């Protein structure tokens, strides 16, 4: 695996200091979703790639269940209510990601970590129509996509979140085609979420410094 990726995963797993997961907590917030990161796509006219990918801004919803021992299960739904638009607004791409995250709080810390599978769906809605492009010395009609097409991928997720002033700051890595050397891709989600509801810091190792409100992605 790429060295940058190893460093990112290491950062995600680094212990911090109270508890981000709280049983019965709802979180609602905004994400910065960077699709196909780590030199996967050309970012410049030269074809040069860099760390970042294509950006969209999903709304995130999450709920924390206390599962067993000090483990939590947190379903997380992300959806781009404002679709990503291709240049010229010819195609609108809506992302929906449902992840089932298993994780726990780092003891005595404001950090948590989690892993889990998910379903990543992308709906591409073409506007149709055509455009004239030069082809040789004469213009040729090129048709713009008109159908609605859906891609659905299983995702493998790993992430960590930090409790800050009653909100959650999160960093998630989302892998598609995790077991394929050819088609594997990774995306990143930075998120900020307001949390409400919820009880104990969770589990036996839950923090003593529990805050009645606040949690995060």
């Amino acid at each position: 695996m790429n060295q940058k990726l190893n460093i990112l995963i290491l950062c995600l797993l680094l212990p911090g200091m109270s508890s981000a997961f709280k049983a019965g907590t709802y979180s609602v917030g905004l994400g910065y979703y960077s699709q196909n990161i780590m030199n996967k796509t050309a970012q410049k006219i030269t074809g040069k790639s860099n760390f970042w990918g294509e950006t969209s801004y999903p709304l995130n919803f999450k709920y924390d269940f206390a599962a067993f021992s000090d483990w939590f299960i947190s379903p997380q739904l992300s959806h781009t209510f404002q679709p990503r638009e291709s240049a010229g607004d010819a195609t609108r791409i809506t992302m929906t990601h449902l992840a089932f995250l298993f994780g726990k709080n780092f003891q005595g810390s404001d950090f948590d970590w989690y892993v889990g599978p998910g379903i990543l769906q992308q709906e591409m809605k073409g506007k149709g129509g055509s455009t004239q492009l030069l082809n040789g010395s004469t213009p040729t009609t090129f048709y713009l996509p008109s159908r609605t097409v859906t891609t659905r991928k299983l995702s493998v997720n790993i992430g960590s979140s930090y409790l800050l002033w009653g909100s959650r700051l999160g960093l998630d890595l989302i892998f598609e085609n995790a077991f394929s050397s050819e088609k594997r891709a990774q995306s990143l989600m930075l998120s900020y979420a307001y949390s409400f509801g919820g009880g104990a810091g969770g589990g036996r190792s839950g923090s003593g410094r529990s805050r009645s409100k606040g949690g995060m992605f």
Partner: protein
Amino acid sequence: MKIYSTLILGFFFSMNAYSFTLQGNSSNLKGWARGEVTFYVNTSNCPGSVDVVGLVKESLEVWNNTPTSSLKVKYGGSTTSTSSSSPPIVYCETNFNAITGADENSVPGAASVNTTGGQINSGFLVLNASGGQSNIANLSRKNLLIVMTHEIGHVLGLGHSQTANAVMYYTYSFKTELNLAQDDIDGISYLYPSDEFSDNEFAGCGHVQSVPPPTPGQMLLLILCLIMPLAVYFKTKKRFYLTHL
């Protein structure tokens, strides 16, 4: 039956600002009927200095590397064909201008597909082996790779993109690296969408036998459906325990 066979010439100027476009004569193109497309290569008229087979193989891998597309392209072997075929072919043309109508001094390659009912039923990619300045022997390997990847994109069903980062952009003259842009990935995913809940793939492992059913995707959903009630069960059990302390 409508047949579309306009040649899409390599790298010319474009006008409006749109994203990926499609080959063919309608907005309803669905690509090749099968998401597995094999390319055959006729090297008989190719310049000896150019490893056309190697270039084709390398360019095909670029299109294979698209996470949300089910497309699989591969090199199938040699052919003697010089016409639109199914599976598609790549060949070198000494009479490049006569066949394509393109300027031999500025166009290194061209591609064409025929469509029926929104589906591609044959195609070919022709490389410039004329006496003109854009004979492929005069291009660097890097530029040839970009040209080949662009033309293969046409054979797969993509028209020109007007996103400057894209391989399907009208010109390669600014390019120093070969990378697909998100717009190229969007385009190929639109034509060959991957759905792991129906195309017998699991986490990118490739095709797996779904015997017996259900598919691995459905299995995962079943497992998740099982886990959620378990979580609720443990949660309520814990509350029950606390109230009886």
